[in-house]
Structure formats: C-alpha cells, structure tokens
C-alpha cells in the first residue's frame, strides 16, 4: 500500500515537473530607433541593455538597435532600456494567447507609480522605441552678469545707502525754505 502511494506521489511529481518544464516561453523583439535625441543607435551597443522586470531578463542591444528578450512567459512584463546616457519610456508588455493558441503582444507606454490603464494606445509590434531625452548631468556655471550682480540684496542695500547719501541732500536743497523750517520744527 505504502509503495503504491509512493508511486502515485512520484507520478504526480513527475507530471508537475513536466508541466513546469514544458511551460512555453516567448521572445520579445524590439528595435531602438534613431530620432532627434539619439541619432546613432550603434553607440548604445556597449552602453545600454533591454531589461525586463528590473533584471529578471536582460538582452544586449545589437548594432542596428534591435534586441530580443528570451524566455518570457505569458503575463505582464515591464520593459525598460537601461542606458547611462539616454532616458527611454517604460513599456508595459502583456503577452497572451488567443483561442487559436497564437501568442499576441500588447505593449503600452506606462509611468511608474501609476495604475496601468488599458485605455492607452497599443504600440506596434515588433516594438519600436525612441529615446525620450539625453541625460544632462551638469549645471552650467554662472558667468559674470551685471543684472545678477545688481539684483544681489547686498548690492540693493548698498544702492539704497548711496542714494540716501548722495540724492537726499540734493532733495533737501531743492525744498522750499519754509517747508524745510516746518519739517525741522516737526522734528523738534
């Protein structure tokens, strides 16, 4: 009895292992296309990778910008292009099979940290991805600017002080002597 039970358990395990082993995998194809931001895609060949689900699957990018991510199963995936120099849009890839058993890919641009909507337009397959921006890592140094110099609060204070020193006596000199006397009396 025990042997029979063990045999049944063994059969179930073998079946499960076979099903797991036979889980069908799919390739995801895409191309990085040149645009105004990235004119020569061959420069990505040693400087970028296609990354799925943050590193579960990786693919190098060929000289013509194409890439193939292997061993994806049915379901949802996040495709990113990890580059040191360029920013690329993130893409939600949904791999499904139709009733006839044919695999289909629905890919949409997504924003990390937001719910993924199915209303977003589906991208053409094989995917064609363009760089959205070139990273600008630096802040340009501020050169000498006369406007910046005079908009400095200290300079404004100095300006006000100078005005008080040089312009106020002139204004006083132009005052009517009677008005001046009145003002002096007020002060007293």
């Amino acid at each position, binding site marked *: 009895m025990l042997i029979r039970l063990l045999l049944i358990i063994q059969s179930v395990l073998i079946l499960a292992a076979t099903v797991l082993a036979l889980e069908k995998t799919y390739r995801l194809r895409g191309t990085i296309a040149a645009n105004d931001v990235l004119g020569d895609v061959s420069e990505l060949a040693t400087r970028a990778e296609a*990354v799925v689900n943050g590193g579960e699957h990786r693919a190098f990018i060929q000289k013509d910008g194409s890439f*193939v991510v292997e061993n994806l199963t049915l379901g949802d995936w996040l495709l990113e292009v990890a580059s040191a120099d360029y920013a690329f849009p993130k893409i939600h890839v949904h791999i499904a099979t139709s009733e006839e058993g044919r695999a289909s890919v629905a890919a949409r641009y997504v924003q*990390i940290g937001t719910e993924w909507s199915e209303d977003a337009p589906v991208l053409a397959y094989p995917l064609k991805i363009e760089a959205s921006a070139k990273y600008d890592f630096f802040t340009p140094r501020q050169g000498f600017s006369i406007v910046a110099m005079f908009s400095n609060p200290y300079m404004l204070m100095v300006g006000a002080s100078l005005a008080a020193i040089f312009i106020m006596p002139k204004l006083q000199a132009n005052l009517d002597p009677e008005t001046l006397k009145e003002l002096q009396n007020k002060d007293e």
Partner: protein
Amino acid sequence: MLARLALTALTLAACLPGARALFPDEAGRIDWYRAQIGAPTALIPHTHNHTALLYAATQRNVVAALRAADGQLAWRHVLDGPISAFSVRDARVLTQSGANHSHVHVWDAASGGLEWSFAQPAPGRGAVFVRDCADVIALAGDALVRLAPGSSEPVWELPLNRTAAYSRIVVHNDAVFAIGDAPQTRSAKRRLHVVQVDAATGALRKQYDTAEGIALRGGSVVVLESREYGAYMVWREPENIVWYVHRLGLTAPMWELYHAKLVEIELMPPDMLTSTIAELDIDAGLNDNTPRFSLSYSKDGKSKSVVVEMFRDGDRLEMRKVASFLADGSAIAASPRRSVVAVRPTDTGAAWRVRGGDKHAGDYTYARSAYGPVARAALVYVGDEPRVVVQTRSGQLAALRPGSSEPLWTRNEALGHAADMAFLTLPPPASAAEHAAKETDSSVQPSPVARYILRWVATGRALVEWVAAGFGIASGDRPALAPTEGDHFGFRKLAVFGASTGAVTAVSSQDGAHAWSHYLTHGRTPVRIERVFVTRSSQALSTDAPVIVAAGRARNATVVAAFDALTGRVLSEDTLPLIYARAFELPATDPATGQRLLGFAVAGAEPRVAVWPPTADAARALCAHTAPLYVELGDQAGSTAVHGYRVACADVTEPWLAAEPAWEFVLPAGETLISATRYEHGAQHTALQGRVLGDRSVLYKYINPHLGVLATQRAAGGIAVYLIDRVSGRLLHSVVHEQAVVSRAHPFVATLSENRLVYQFWRGLPAGYVTAVAELFESDRPDTRNESPAVSSLDLQLPSVVMAAFVAPEAATALGTTRTGSSITTRDVLFGLASGKLLALPDALLDPRRPMGAPTKDEQAEGLVAYAAPLPLDPRRVLSHGHAVAGIAHVRSAPTHLESTALVAAFGLDVFFSRTSPSGLFDQLSPTFSKANLVITSLALVAGCLLGAPMVRRKLTTRAWA
C-alpha cells in the same frame, strides 16, 4: 495623471533643498572612475584593422577587448553568468555564458556590438565557430545545436546521451565532435567518449570510447585542431610512457601514432611519468594549421617545458619542437604568429622569453609579495614589436616590451574583486607652523625666548607659504601630492580594498593613484579577504603609523594581516585556527600596540569570540574597558533563528572569550533570513536629538546603536522586516510586505543611518521597485521622551515608527547614506543602480512624514512637501554622471574635515569615487571666487582712501573759510 506628475516634479524641484549639482569642469576632477574587468580566465591576442587587441574572458563574467598599446578598454560587456566558451575568429568574438541557462553571443570584435545571440534553457558546456562561416556549434545541457545568425531556431539539434559529461567541441570540415568524460563503472575505467555528428544535418555518425584512464581536465590530454591535417587528441595513459595520437573519427586503427619519444627525446621513463601536457592554442583561431602544445617535466631536479607543433610530412604525422624553456612556475602562451612566450619567476619578479619565431627576452621587476606569482601570460604584437602581458595571481595585468623592465601599462584587476573597503583619514601636510608647534614644545625647546622667536619665524614662513600657494585657502586639489599625503580638508584619504583574490590594495580617494599592494596567502593559497579595518588612525605629527588590517578565509583558517597604512609594510600576520561567522571591531584598544581590537565570532557547539591581536592581554583589555559585550550569530542568509550571546570575561588566559547564550530570536514558521543590516561605522551619530515641527514642538529621535534589521522571506509569499535590539534580542517593530519578491534578480538592499531605515525591494507589477522608509521616534507625541532613567537596551521603550513607501526609479543593487563630520548636514541616500548610476536622493524626498495632501502651514514650516509616490531620476543628482559603474555591490561614505562635504565610493566590479555636498557648499568659497580680485579691490579701496583723504581735508578747510 501626467499633469499631476509634472506638477509634483515641479513642486519638488521648487521645494527640495538644492543639492549642488555637478559643474561640467568638476567631472573627472572631484571624482574618478575605473572600469574593471576582473581577473582573466583566458587572454586571446588578435589584431583588427592594424590595432592590436587582447580579448579577455574573466572570473567576473566579463568579456572585454583591451588595447595592447595602452591597456585601455576598447569595449566590455558584463554577461549573465560564468563564461563557458570564448573564442575569437574572423573579426568576431564568441561567448557562451549563464548559470542555469546559457546564452550564445557573437560580438563584433572591433566595436563590441552584438551581432546575434541565441538562448538555450540549460547550462552551457562549450561553443565553437564553424570554420569558413558565421555559424556556431554549441553544447548546452546534453543538447548539441547548430546556430546560424539571424535565425531564431537552431539549424539542427541533437540530444546527446548522458553517458558522458561533454565539455569540448571540435569542428573539422563536415564533422562535429563532442568529447566528454565517461565516468568509471564496474565494467569500465574512466575514459573519454567521442560523438561524431554530421555538421550539415546534425545526424549522428559515430560514437566511441577512447583514451582509457584519461580525463579532459588534468594535464594528460590535449586536443589539437588543424585546418589542414584534421583534429587530433594526444594523451599518455597513467603509468605508461607511451604517447598516443588519435585522429578524431578514426577508430580503426584507434591511434595514428604512438611513441615514447614523441615530444622530447631526452626524457627518461621516470621523468616521463610525472610530465603533463597543456594546449597552447587555447583558441583554434590562433594557429590554423600547425597546432601547438607544451610538455612540462622535471629532469635532474629542474623543471622544463617544451613547446611542440604538429605537422605532417607527406603521409606521416610528426611533432616538431618549437622552443624549450626553464619552466619552474612558468606561464606559457602562444601568439597568432609562430612565436611562443614563457614567463618564469625570478628573485626580482619575472623573466620572459619569446621563442619559436622571433627571439626576444626581458625582465619584469616587481615585488611578488605585492601582486603574487605569475598566473597567465599572453603574447601580442603591436606592429612587429612584441608585448608580453603578464597576469599575476592577485589579478594585476602588466604589459612588457623588450628593453625595459618597467611595465608599459598596468591594470589592477584585483579591484574588480573587492569585497570590502576602508577609508583611512590621512594626516594633513605639516605646515611650517605645525612643525614649529612641535619644535617649540617645552620638552624640545626649554628656553621660552627661543620658543617665542621660533613661533614668529614659523608664522612668517606660513604667510610666505600661503602667498606662494596663490592664497590657496579653498583648494583641496593638490595632484602633486603622493597618495599617502593628506590635505587640510580631508578630501584626500586612503581607500584600502580587500579582494577575494588575496589582494590588499591602497589607492588615493582623490584620484585613484596607487599607493601600495600586498598579496595575502596562506601557504600557496590566496586568502579570500572579506573585511578591512582601520585599527589605528592617523595622528598629526605622531610617530605611530596608522594601521590597516585585512581579514579573510583560507581553507580552515582565518588569516589576519596588519599593514602600515602609509607604506604597506606588513606589521604582523596571524593565522587563527578558526572559521569565523562574523568579524567586527571591538570597543577597546590593545594595550601593547594601541590598535583597536577586532573580534571574530565563532559559531558552533561552543560559541566564542576570538580577539585580535591574539594575546590574552588584548582579551583582558576588552574585559577591563567595556560594558558587557553582546554578539549575535546566525544572521546569515538562510538562517531561521538569530542567537544573541553575552561575552564572558571570567579567568581570561587565552586570546578568546567564551560566549554565553543571552537571547534567541526565532523567526516565525516558514520564514528564512535573507539579509541582516546594522549601522555602518558611525552612521548612528546625530547632531540633533529631535525633529523640530512647524509648531516648534519636538519629536525626539529614537537612536539605538544596537538596532538591527532582519529581512526574511516568507513561505506564504512576500517578505517581513524586523527591527530588533541586538543586545536584548527584543523585537522593536515589524512590517510585512506581502507582495514583495526577493531573488537573485531582485535583491533586498537596505541602509540604516541615524533614526532612519531605507530599504528597497521588488513588489511586482505595476508598482515595480518600492523604496520603503521607516523613521523611528521615541514617541508619537511631540515633546515626549523616553522615560527610562538610564540609556540601556534593556530598558528602552518601543519606538514609534513612521513609515512611507515610494516607487523607486530603477533597480538598486546597493544603498548607502552620506556621512559628514558632525552629522549637521542633511544626509543623502545613495542608490547604486543596476544601470550603473550612483544616485543621491535628498533626505527630504524620502521623508516618511510628507503629508498626503497639500502641506499645512506648520508642515511647510517644517520643510515638508506633499507626498508623491514616484522618486524622480533627476540626472543632476546622478553623482556618477556619464559613467556606467558596473556591478555596484557596495556604496560607502566617509566624512571630510568640511561639514558640508562627504566622500562617496561605489564599488563591486567598477570603482567610482566622488564627493558630494547634500546641503550645498555652505562652508567653502566657490571655485570661481577670485581671491586676487578681493585683494586688488581691498588695495584699491585703501588707495582710494589715501588719495581721497587730502581732497576731503581741502574741501573741509575751504568750507570752514567760506
């Protein structure tokens, strides 16, 4: 939604404290970057478009092309696992790599661009090019396949039987041979099994056993591939002096040639029995027609090597001697030309000889104690001039040329294996005034008058120095200094790396300049260094040298070596007969040497803490100077319980202390530990005991230096994070992330500083990577403190924890936090990203108290900005700017003498150092500040006053007379 994100980004940009972004001219001046490849496992010379290149496959799963002229990287790829095949042919490079699966990649040899690739769902065992076409024959698992560029399916696939472990493929004309080790059985000895397959169709033609008693790896068989003569195996059976030459595919007769004097006629039978043979043309592309191999033997007490090439004289197969070398510990390598090179150790380093085609010889003068013996060599020609590239055991590559014993270039690839790094603060260069302070010490100069005069002289000299240095008060950049010389700002530190190759390497944190190296071994085995400590720091004008200690494992022992940090001289080297579970600094100093004590906790039936230096006095010093010491064991990945021990100090007569069980923290059923985090050295320091809220009340920080963080994998799915006290074993807080996934592809990374824990994990889609932040306070009510009369782990109340989760911009492989001298400056959290960026995000962005809606007035006054889940990847916060720092495994920070500025380092494979100022350069003048202008303006004002004074006096006099 996009508009909301944009608004959030704008708000953040407007509200967050402005970390100083890098100016273009600072790149490469305040930072340095070194692209590493790791220690090569194969070096193949190749010339492409008149550029001599050296292709390398390495232990760090890197395939790279180095320019032979200068050693610079032409290109590099980090592959997804160990490299199981590597070949260069017809301007293409072939690699097969992977751990549980395999990828065949074919690269353009000149640019490194990928030409095509193919994936197989089993570990790779070998791959070769098919001659005269771009196809590849690959072996993965037990499947032999032919792959063609541009095709997503194999041309053919043949499952091989499992009677042999195949690891070698040879292609000759229309035949493919797979050779494997057939295991020993009751009826048959160990032997080689050969499968012959039709290269065009994949049809099995023949399979047979041969070479009885021989294994493919073991120095007893070589496979020779000749375009003209065919593919052969040459072996000598154990306990037999006869050499057999078997042409692959021919079984009748089984061998084409057998002879006792096949290679070396002088060799006598006793010497023959201990000889070994090795393939020289490791890549068949090196020599198409006359493949070479070497025979190494001992004769009359001398080790020798003979290099032989195979050729055919009419119908007769012959072996011809190309060169012979004295070969004690030699490395021999072949070039695409007929020449071969042998590098052998000498008293001053190594000597190399090129023979076979042209003749050259030279020496390489280096300290073997610094880099280890020669491990591998390569011969490459730049034009017609040979370059001999020598690889040492520690991972150093050096290129040599005739006529010079100094290397043309070197690459220290040990840094690519760095497991730990310690910053050593260097003493600033002693100024004239400081020298005077020493000279005028009353013990040196008893006369007060002489001391007074000396001080004035020194002050004058310092003034002259200052003027001569161009009023250099704000410049810490003095590239002319030696790597072991410090500066006044603490920017120049010594970064000492310990590598798994046994290398201890000290470089300058300022520019990466090499200071010293040491190759640490136990017998002949390199020590796998895991920890580096500073046990005695630099003291200005002190005669005691700072000390660096490297500790690592070797076989069943622990090796601890102490170095003079400034010279690299070995001060002591101790072998402790133990396997430690954890190495850590102890809170006491050695009375004999003044060094910080180190502890090595040993698990097992009798847990204990071994003290280094290994003296009973050191152990007694620990017991005398500190409160009870607690240590926890079992906090490594895979554990299900963590045990705390109290170190017992009774009757200390040995350099170790027994550890008594104090507490046990058993993880809930079904959970296993994946990561343990504790404070890095000094990360718990704080300048502010609390956070001042908008209404001027204070939330007091929970600072517990014994805080420990355990992350566990739950069988039910997700992870749990436990905050425990490492002295009492008390659980302080726990949190479960049910949707988190932690795996090799999705590591759990964490950093702990002050009262804040930051960690990152993968949460599946659509969230992606989540950065969670936990901030610990003494109470959730402002102005309320811990009521305990004494600060003790045993009395501490539970902390009040405020948590928030953010969506991380990318996968992180390591986290760190900036550290400044007094911890007054806000801290940046450093993210070592998988894409090779080192990102610094400000404290305020990761504040768990950020309000969900628009901040109230009080919240605004506190500096809080509205919560937004995504953390931005602002390129101006990427410290590594355009560098792709590959394989970041550690992110470290060290304070400088300026409170505003912290040094940061990221290493793992590549090495990157920089400095950052999270709150801006509030204590430094801008580099564009013109000191000359300031002096000129001041002088002009004085001159104006002097000129204007008589005029004013004249005017006043005139007015008085009017």
